[in-house]
């Protein structure tokens, strides 16, 4: 790790000021990606701005049609939260699959969504549930948020404050973990909003995206047979040591089928 200046602002405004006055600043949330990267000397920020003291980033609110999760909420808290488990169990289930116990105790939802790792789990929920990303400056719709490999709609210095998930009638997530890292080789979230179907896919491409062909096939026909004929082209899919694009495309369908089976039995 290289030397850096450490800041722990108490407010969002202070954090943004800090970022803007830094030569090469970076926000620190749970640190589960940033800190290993810095330790390997692959990242060398001049200033690390720790967001953990900012009250506005914490808290979980569960209403009848929405679950609002503060950006600094740790994965483990989402996994165990009574209200989320009752109202939006798929989110608790997804959070419980992330990394391992240590990662879930430190990692945060805001950090994960801001980082947009192609193999992270939360992006599947953000896309699949059609969440709204709230920042210190604005609201961003899920469909506009993920742009490319580690690229999002966030402007430099913009901070995610909260993520609002609409509550579907039912939803399920299936993940095919990488045996080494336990990141998603492919993860598919299928949500049913009173017959309107959304499918969020992570792991397969450079960033999370909607499985629109699958959605169309499932509209008004939510069963695994409905997607049998759907082609999942592997164009642009990730192709690496752990899985070819072709295999990932195959897994998208298998995971989708299994998620649907979870929903319809």
């Amino acid at each position, binding site marked *: *790790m*290289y*030397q850096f200046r450490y800041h722990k602002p108490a407010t969002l405004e202070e954090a943004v000021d800090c970022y803007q006055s830094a030569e090469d600043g970076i926000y620190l949330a749970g640190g589960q990606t940033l800190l290993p990267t810095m330790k*390997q*000397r692959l990242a060398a920020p001049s200033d690390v701005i720790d967001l953990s003291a900012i009250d506005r980033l914490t808290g979980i609110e569960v209403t009848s049609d929405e679950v609002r999760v503060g950006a600094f909420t740790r994965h483990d808290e989402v996994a165990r939260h009574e209200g989320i488990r009752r109202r939006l169990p798929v989110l608790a289930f997804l959070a419980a699959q992330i990394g391992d116990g240590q990662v879930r105790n430190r990692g945060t939802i805001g950090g994960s969504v801001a980082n947009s790792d192609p193999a992270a789990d939360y992006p599947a929920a953000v896309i699949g549930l059609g969440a709204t990303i709230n920042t210190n400056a604005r609201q961003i719709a899920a469909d506009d948020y993920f742009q490319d490999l580690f690229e999002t709609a966030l402007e430099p210095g913009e901070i995610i404050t909260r993520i609002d998930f609409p509550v579907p009638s039912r939803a399920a997530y299936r993940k*095919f973990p990488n*045996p*080494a*890292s336990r990141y998603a080789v492919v993860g598919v979230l299928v949500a049913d909003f009173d017959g309107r179907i959304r499918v969020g896919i992570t792991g397969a491409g450079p960033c999370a995206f909607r499985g629109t062909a699958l959605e169309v096939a499932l509209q008004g026909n939510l069963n695994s047979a409905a997607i049998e004929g759907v082609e999942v082209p592997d164009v642009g899919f990730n192709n690496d*040591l*752990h*899985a*070819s694009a072709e*295999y990932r495309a*195959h*897994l998208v369908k*298998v995971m989708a*089928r299994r998620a649907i089976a979870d929903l319809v039995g």
Partner: protein
Amino acid sequence: MAEAIESGIGAPVRRKEDMRFITGEGRYTDDFSQRGQVYAAFLRSPYARARLDSVDASEALAMEGVLAVLTGQDMAADGFGDLPCGWTVKQKDGSDMVTAAHPPLAHSIVNYAGEPYGLVVASSVAVARRAAERVITEFTELDAVVNPALAMDSEDIHAGVVGNLCYDWELGDASATDAALAAAAHVTRLDLTNNRLIPNAMEPRAALGIYDPGTGEHTLYTTSQNPHLERLVLSAFVKVAPEHKLRVIAPDVGGGFGSKIFVYPEETAVIWAARKLRRPVKWTAERGESFLADAHGRDHVTHAQLGLDEQGRFVALKVQTTANLGAYLSLFGSSVPTYLYGTLLAGQYKTPNIHVEVHGVYTNTAPVDAYRGAGRPEATYVVERIVEIAARELGMDPVELRRRNMIQPADFPYQTPVALVYDTGDYEASLDKALQLIDYAGFPARRAAAAVAGKRRGIGLSCYIEACGLAPSKLAISLGAGVGLYESGEVRVNPTGSVTVFTGTHSHGQGHETTFAQVVAARLGVDIDDVELVHGDTGRVEFGLGTYGSRSLSVGGSAIVGALEKVIAKGRRIAAHMLETDVENIDFEEGQFRLRDSNRALSFGEVAFAAYVPADYPEDLEPGLSEKAFYDPENFTYPAGTHIAEVEVDVETGVVALVNLVAVDDFGILINPLIVHGQVHGGLAQGAGQALLEQAVYDEYGQLQTGSLMDYCIPRADDLPDFLVDTTVTPCTHNPLGAKGCGEAGAIGSPAAIMNALTDALGVNDISMPATSEKIWRALSG
């Protein structure tokens, strides 16, 4: 006394050392520090093969806290020798293998990504690493040779090594084997790869070099499985310091699996730098450095042919292997694919004709050397995979085919066609017990039930043998070993009757402090807590060859038994004097020196005290009670057994679940079954890792693609089933403990069992290790 019996031979005593380890009180190399200590960071090649044109350290040297930048050129100028290979393999034509010079720090050419060519020494680790990045090195990149199968047809990477061929070696009768194959009723052919593995001990390698300018003594703390051998090599070959001025200490070591047998560039450079700078110098590897620069394991490409007669009896086995040795010969790298591999190709069977040839080749990858099992897993993999496939081709039950060919108890001692003489065994006893444990008869029902659930279930066996207890010195030296492979033991009885035991073996997870104490406590009748084991320090232990090849108990333990017998013999003389009788009338049992047929006795403690306070003492006897022994084994030991795996494949995804793994092993007499089972569990986990998860991958440029635990998959608890582990016993016939060794068997037997089970499930003959879900999915879809 009850205590001693409960801790005696065969008792599952909990490990004495574990409280220290699990409460964080273990002391590893990195835990030792000295006043004035400074830190090293290594300069490593970013290229797999390149000419080293220039090193400009001026910017690094100008940084605050930087003491020195030392390079391979500096080391060569100081008269340091190359790192030697400790085993000279003779080629087919009788010539010696072709050795490429292996300087500890590269000075003109680099031959693998991560190879060190210099080091920065600085006041802190952070400064040293930052400074290392500011050293400006100019390289001319050269084409790398990465694929061992193509190495002989590629550009020569070392001057004088034609076709990158280190050796063309053979064992067995080629013409008899060819003739028998030609006449065979059936020939099974198989092409196999044995995947390259990266050891990943929990504790990374580390070294702390200290130089005392007053006495000229060098002290090296390092992560070694064999500190005396490290000292010998550093003195005799690398010329670091004379042996009597060099002390090597291997304190608590967190795992080795073979990778800490070898003498590496880093510890060599650290002790050199300490003397040069007159400051203690420490280096501790990061995990990424371990991946790049620890010796890797396995990496064979093999073609095998098994001939059978009409009755299914094996008539000939012919094996041709290309073994990747890496960029340089590591300390024992040459012996692993030859004498530890070819000699084991008889397996448990009476195959009358066997011929093996091995091409050992250099490539621009990290050196390859012994990794848990070392040659024997590769041999077992060839034999047990081809036997299984032969059974399938002939439509025979694989169990029956094995039984028909097994060496029977009446056949021992059994001379194999590949040099070894097996002393004892009962292979069908292990096979029968394993079949029973896994409920082999119930498998068809389990397979049918799995099919109903949409899964493919398969079962597979592996009946392995290994040669342990390295090794009879004369034999090893006649085959090219540069050292004898005996062991030393010393039993020092203290005046109050407690016992300090010294062994030249080294414990880095094997539980010697407990097992050896059990041996001593049982023989002397003292409490196990009154026995302390000292190991891992050339300044305290006379000599030793260390721990590898499952040799510690059978060779090191036997040396201790020799010393114990001398202690008891002397004790009987003292007791005879004190009891006013002749030594022939004194029996020693359960800690008592007893006058036969009487109730007169002296405790071991009383006799020990008399030896140090010799008031009533024989006139012709030296005081004191401390004895040493060396033990040189007559033969290898031959642990053997049967491992059976059962797997279930998810046909949609290709994910394989290892649902059952049974191991029944014959390790001879067990001292501590709890520790033995623990060793087997660890070995099975590594075997499962090799079969299903682990693979070192280099790209075409020789860059390591699996350089972290995010990409290199070592097995975790949830990848493994509850193992069913049991033993059978035929005592080793030629050592006093009857013990054979248990450290490697799990990793030797299990990969073939798992792959036989998997290919059974899939209905294919081969799928390469590691059998990842994608490979399985492709096998199923294709």
